[in-house]
């Protein structure tokens, strides 16, 4: 009897032990993405999906749908299929999906090849929609630019989650039937992306947040920035108690003389940025010079050769090697050449990031995130950046063939091609200097992104535009329901380069800096401190001099008085 009781207690303990582990395992969101693209490779469209899923999934595995095998779904919680191009899928694909127990979402073409689960969807004629809405959720209706959608027919019992509204038609866009979701659009760009992301809450069974995260980033703060304007902006933001980001460029290159200016040459700007960092601002490294060739800082593309529309595989003065695979004798030669290019690019980016982080840290400025100049960055580039930064802010270049494939996503995300980096998407764009309606346009975008609960309202502002327009923008942004300003310092971020580790959390920044290492890394670093010391000592000198002036003045007056006393006495 005693023995039995003991065994039961033991068994219960074991169960208590195991159960949380089991539930945890169940909650793990491991996603399998199957795709169909022209060349069978992950492309820009698939990366858009990656960005959207990155907000929810713990792991995402990509596989060409034609190559899928039975074992691929093992341990997966969700399957997404993205038919970017029309193709007849092999029967195996349907088999694999049919045997999967979790939710399956099909986007775009080729639904017919996805097994019985998707029999509820059939093709229909296309129609033009001018608005999107979510039945039962009146606040999610948005007017859109007229858009032609491939129509679908659905079986009875299918739930319409998102529908398109045309002049005469109502057209299902996102539908669900027994755990099978179909997204009847071919590209996950706005406005569709905002609806898609909203539906992801349901697909991943996650509660949507009430708050709307927002951020404002002050753009292109370089050594030639106007310190007074910076201070005006800083005071305004401080007064309104709004945390913000500063996109800082450590070097300004004069467009005519080519002369390089660092913050050590602009003590007032430096002082302003330090003040900002201490009063709500967080530094975001925005490249090192913001230029590759000789263009003005803030104008050039630093990590992209925009002239040849290719990554930096060559020196500034070199003519790029534009060969293609056909120019090589063997695939091995081609591959070796590609490796070389990637190594060159890696070294180029590493040098600039290291220099940028070190230089700023040497000034007491601690970048908590990175933003590529003009958001241009190759896939290899994101990989390199992820070695240095845990957080990336901005829009995202989606492939290496054309820098204009630039997109964003509604939610903070962790896409696989960011290699662990957290993306804080910029959704609102910016206050265009020449556009009177700029703020209104930003607010329209914000409204669009509100379709996704917790959809980011992030935009940027050039401090040189002055405080008035910023005031207007902030005023508008504060009207966003449940707006919650993001503070990088409250988030856990880690930035590291040789000799420098910066981390943040709970509103503070922690640094681990190997001073000796840093000071020996470049002569410029100790030189800056020497200069500061010299400047400070100048004030010390003036102070001592002034004290002597006062002292001697007192002596002279006393002496003179004594003389008078002798005279009169």
């Amino acid at each position, binding site marked *: 009897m005693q023995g039995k009781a003991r065994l039961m207690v033991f068994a219960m303990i074991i169960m208590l032990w195991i159960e949380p582990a089991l539930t945890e395992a169940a909650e793990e969101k491991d996603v399998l993405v199957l795709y169909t693209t022209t060349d069978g490779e992950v492309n820009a469209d698939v990366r858009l999906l990656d960005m959207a899923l990155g907000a929810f999934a713990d792991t995402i595995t990509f596989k060409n749908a034609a190559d899928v095998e039975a074992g691929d779904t093992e341990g997966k919680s969700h399957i997404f299929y993205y038919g970017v191009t029309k193709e007849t899928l092999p029967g195996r694909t349907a088999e694999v999906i049919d045997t999967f127990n979790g939710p399956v979402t099909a986007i775009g073409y080729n639904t017919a090849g996805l097994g019985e689960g998707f029999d509820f969807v059939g093709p229909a004629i296309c129609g033009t929609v001018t608005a999107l809405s979510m039945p039962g959720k009146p606040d999610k209706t948005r007017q859109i630019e007229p858009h032609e959608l491939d129509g679908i027919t659905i079986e009875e019992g299918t739930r319409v989650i998102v529908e398109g509204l045309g002049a005469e038609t109502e057209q299902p866009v996102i539908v669900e039937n027994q755990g099978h979701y179909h997204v009847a659009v071919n590209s996950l760009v706005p406005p569709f992306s905002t609806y898609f992301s909203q539906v992801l809450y349901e697909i991943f069974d996650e509660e949507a947040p009430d708050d709307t995260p927002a951020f404002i980033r002050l753009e292109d703060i370089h050594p030639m920035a106007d310190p007074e304007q910076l201070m005006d902006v800083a005071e305004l933001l401080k007064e309104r108690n709004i945390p913000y980001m500063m996109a800082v460029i450590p070097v300004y290159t004069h467009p005519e003389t080519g002369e390089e200016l660092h913050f050590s040459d602009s003590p007032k700007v430096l002082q302003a940025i330090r003040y900002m960092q201490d009063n709500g601002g967080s530094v975001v490294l925005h490249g090192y010079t913001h230029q590759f060739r000789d263009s003005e800082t803030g104008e050039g593309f630093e990590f992209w050769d925009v002239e040849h529309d290719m990554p930096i595989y060559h020196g500034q003065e070199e003519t790029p090697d534009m060969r293609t695979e056909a120019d090589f004798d063997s695939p091995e030669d081609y591959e070796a050449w590609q490796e070389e290019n990637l190594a060159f690019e890696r070294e180029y980016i590493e040098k600039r990031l290291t220099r940028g982080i070190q230089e700023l840290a040497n000034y007491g400025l601690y970048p908590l995130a990175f933003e590529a100049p003009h958001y241009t960055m190759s896939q290899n580039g994101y990989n390199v950046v992820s070695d240095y930064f845990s957080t990336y802010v901005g829009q995202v270049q989606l492939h290496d063939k054309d820098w204009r494939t630039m997109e964003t996503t509604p939610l903070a995300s962790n896409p696989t091609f960011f290699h662990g980096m957290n993306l804080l998407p910029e959704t609102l764009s910016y206050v265009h200097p020449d556009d009177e309606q700029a703020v209104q346009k930003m607010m329209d975008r914000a409204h669009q992104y509100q379709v996704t609960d917790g959809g980011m309202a992030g935009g940027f502002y050039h401090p040189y535009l002055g405080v008035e327009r910023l005031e207007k923008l902030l005023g508008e942004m504060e009207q966003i329901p449940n707006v919650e300003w993001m503070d990088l310092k409250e988030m856990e971020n880690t930035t590291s380069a040789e000799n420098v580790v910066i981390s943040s959390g709970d509103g503070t920044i922690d640094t681990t800096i190997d001073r000796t290492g840093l000071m020996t890394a470049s002569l410029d670093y100790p030189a800056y401190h020497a200069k500061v010391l010299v*400047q400070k000592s*100048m004030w010390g*000198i003036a102070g001592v001099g002034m004290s002597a002036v006062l002292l001697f003045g007192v002596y002279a007056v006393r*002496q*003179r008085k004594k*003389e008078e006393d002798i005279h009169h006495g």
Partner: protein
Amino acid sequence: MADFLLYMSLFIIWFMLFYHMFLMQGGYLHHRRHRELKAAWEKDPGELPSFSILIPAHNEDMVIADTLKAMAALQYPKDRLEVIVVNDNSSDATGEIVEGFAARYSFIHAVHTRPPEGGKGKSGALNQGLKRASGDVIAVYDADNTPEPDAVWYLALGLNKDPDAGAVVGKFRVQNGGRNLLTRLINMETLTFQWLAQAGRWFWFRMATIPGTNFAIRREILDELGGWDEKALSEDTELSFRVYNLGWHIRFFPAAVTWEQEPETLNVWWKQRMRWARGNEYVIGKYLLGLHRLKHRKITLDLFYFLFTYLLFFTGILLSHAIFVTNLFVDLDLTIGMVSYVLLVTGFLLFLVEVLLALSLERGQLTLKNAGTAVLMYFTYSQLWLALVVHATFLEAKRMLTKQEVTWYKTQRFQTSGRETVKKEKRAKSS
């Protein structure tokens, strides 16, 4: 680069200004303390030494009579005093005037020299006088000096009571200080120099530079040194260095007062100061090259003081002037900002207050008029010095490179008030 040069020059300038502040503080403290010491020594002066006064005179008929009158009025036992006037190759009435005094006063002697021994300048004349001197203490007065009656007694007192002093230096005052703006400025300069540099250095380091006049030195030292260096343009600075080198100190004793005439025209001022500046640069060159041979490290302090004053300080000032002016026309991207103006103002105020403090130490000198002149002094007189030192350095550098012989410029004298102004132009340059 411009930044670097500017900071460099500011450091040099302020290094010197700090040193001056330090000296001024010492000078002030010395002023406060020396009165008690003087009173104590006066009570027990000790046995007065035999005293020889050397007065080199080259064409001094305009001033020598006044000088000798003052000599005759000296309060010192006449059996222990001799005044030797070295009438050095004069072409005017100096000889006759001196002979006249010599006939009347037994302790006044005349030595007349002619080339080849004579006419070699002040050092040469002093060496000629030294040969004739019999005193244990040798004092020197310029031919335009009128010492106060107790001046010599105080010099003797200083040597008596301070066995470590090789020489005692008195204070000189400007006789014609009220004549014009220039003499007024010189008056303020001499007071500042003596209370800041002389009294300050004495207070902190037991050092003072032997001036050309109103000082007394032990005979044994001159014998050991072999007299004055006839190649030196500023024989006084040179002599000071050699006295330090023997291990003696030089006492500044402001109780011994003499009054002397200062240049009344810029032209004369320029020539006299040019001699001093070049002379001091000569000394810098001479001793700096032989620094390792100097026995007493204390000299290096003074040597570097001169080095800093004549070369680095002025270089610093020139450089910062140049940067300042250049920056008016071309943007040098200077990052110094506000503090440069603060330093500029502080530097000026420091100068002003130091001059005013020095003036306050002399009865009746700290007047509103003098205070106003001190402001003017900074912008005129001090800048003139800058030009002078640049010129002197240029000439000295040229001389050293081409190995030219030195020529002695004897300061031109001026009629003391009451007399007629004559022959100034004719005697502007001699020897």
